[in-house]
């Protein structure tokens, strides 16, 4: 899974996709997860990191992570070379 290269992400959680002209906002954890994805980290690595720092159980985070990735895919922010 790879984030499309030309996507611009600001430090404040603003995301712009020049291919479609669409803009998005991310909440803080969304921003963190996206940065992990950008660095090519696996779900297991991301989950371990999040569970260490946030008060959430692994099932809930896995469900929310899948939903988040689904959204990235839905908005064509993840490349097809995953």
């Amino acid at each position, binding site marked *: 899974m790879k984030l499309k290269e030309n996507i611009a992400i600001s430090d404040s959680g603003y*995301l712009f996709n020049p291919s479609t002209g*669409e*803009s*998005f*906002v*991310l*909440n*803080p*954890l*969304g921003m*963190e*997860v*996206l940065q992990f994805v950008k660095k090519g980290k696996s779900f297991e690595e991301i989950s371990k990191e999040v569970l260490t*720092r*946030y*008060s*959430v159980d692994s099932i*809930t*985070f896995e469900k*929310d*992570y899948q*939903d*988040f990735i*689904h*959204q*990235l895919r*839905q*908005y064509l*922010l993840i490349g097809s070379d995953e």
Partner: protein
Amino acid sequence: MEKQRYERPILKKLEMGMPGKFGVAANLPPTTHIDGISVDSLVETYGSPVFILSEKTIRSVFKRAKKAFTTRYPKVQFAWSYKTNYLNAVCRIYHQEGSWAEVVSGFEYDKAIANGVQGQHIIFNGPDKSAIYLEKAIRNDSILHIDHLDELYTIIELTEKLAKKPKVAIRVNMDTGIQPMWDRFGFNYENGQAWDALNKIMHSGKLDLVGLHTHIGTFIMSPQAYGVAAQKLADLAIGIRQKYNHTIKYIDMGGGFASANTLKGFYYPGSDTNPTFDDYAEAITSALLNTQFTPDNLPLLILETGRALIDEAGYLLGTVIANKRLSTGKRTTIVDIGINLLFTSFWYEHKLTPARHYSQYTEATTVYGPLCMNIDVIRENVNLPLLNKGDHFVIHHVGAYNMTQWMQFITLRPKIVLIDQDGTAHVIRENETMDNVMNMEHLPAHLK
């Protein structure tokens, strides 16, 4: 190290809508407490879902409505519309505040009597009054609002048997300049039906014509329509005095005032844009004062408003069952409140607030009920914070009709709790049990 509060990761697409002159807050403050009791503890104690009624709000809204009319007109009487919410505790609060009872069936009539309302303070409306209940109402000196000629003739027949002169009024329907025009109840003003009925009553000599009644519609957004209606009823009253030298004691403007709910299709919240009691009172009382009634001959003004009095006092507390996405990516939240409990979600965009604080991030969400029915939609589209399974929320302004029109369908009906003026909670209606439902059924022998 203490862990940080978790909020699921979200990605929200920014949509450019039509610019509006007035902004509407996208993120509503949470409702953590109702009359001093936390929403979480109410759910924990009484289950989810649960209806909550605030006695403090019931009484304060009533006083606001009463003040709007009594400051403008000297003789005002409210009659509590039983069908809007006929829980005994609710009815008794209104009766304590001085309301008469307005009922539309034998069942409601008996409820009013059981609630200690004196017969002469019960207004009997509706198209279905059986001869048995008409007789009962006549014996109790209740006021009969005649809906059709068949009823009029039944009452005249009963007078021969009872040797009493029943107190009657007619319900008048009319064109008040709004659509839809309700003409299925009562007698029409414009085509002469109303005068025909009045002439029959007066010529019979057996009935005491005490009032004139109308109920022009429901959730009326135009106060001026009430002004037109009051003017037309006043014209009838003045005509009766001229023709028969008979004085009408009261004019009953019925109900139909809008509450603070937002009707579907309206852009701005009903709490900001719907008419207030003062708007309705100004239209009605001005119309009456500007007629030929002399100051010492003004009729009593009766109001049967229900929805606008109780809606604000009702809350429905629920719990998130699940979150999921539709094929389009649209966020949906499934909650334990369905249209079987929230009948009014068919026509209102009910205000829905979380029961605790969340971050400023929201998502456009469709809120579905728990029923396995496609029509079970509580909100088509509402900006909600990132609710999780098990989180509690509050639906506002549900006091009218939901606790009478609700259905035992798929699930059992929940408890209703009243928080009194001291902040103490009382269960005023128990939740249904399996036994309640099963005990009404009978199995034929061959199926046992």
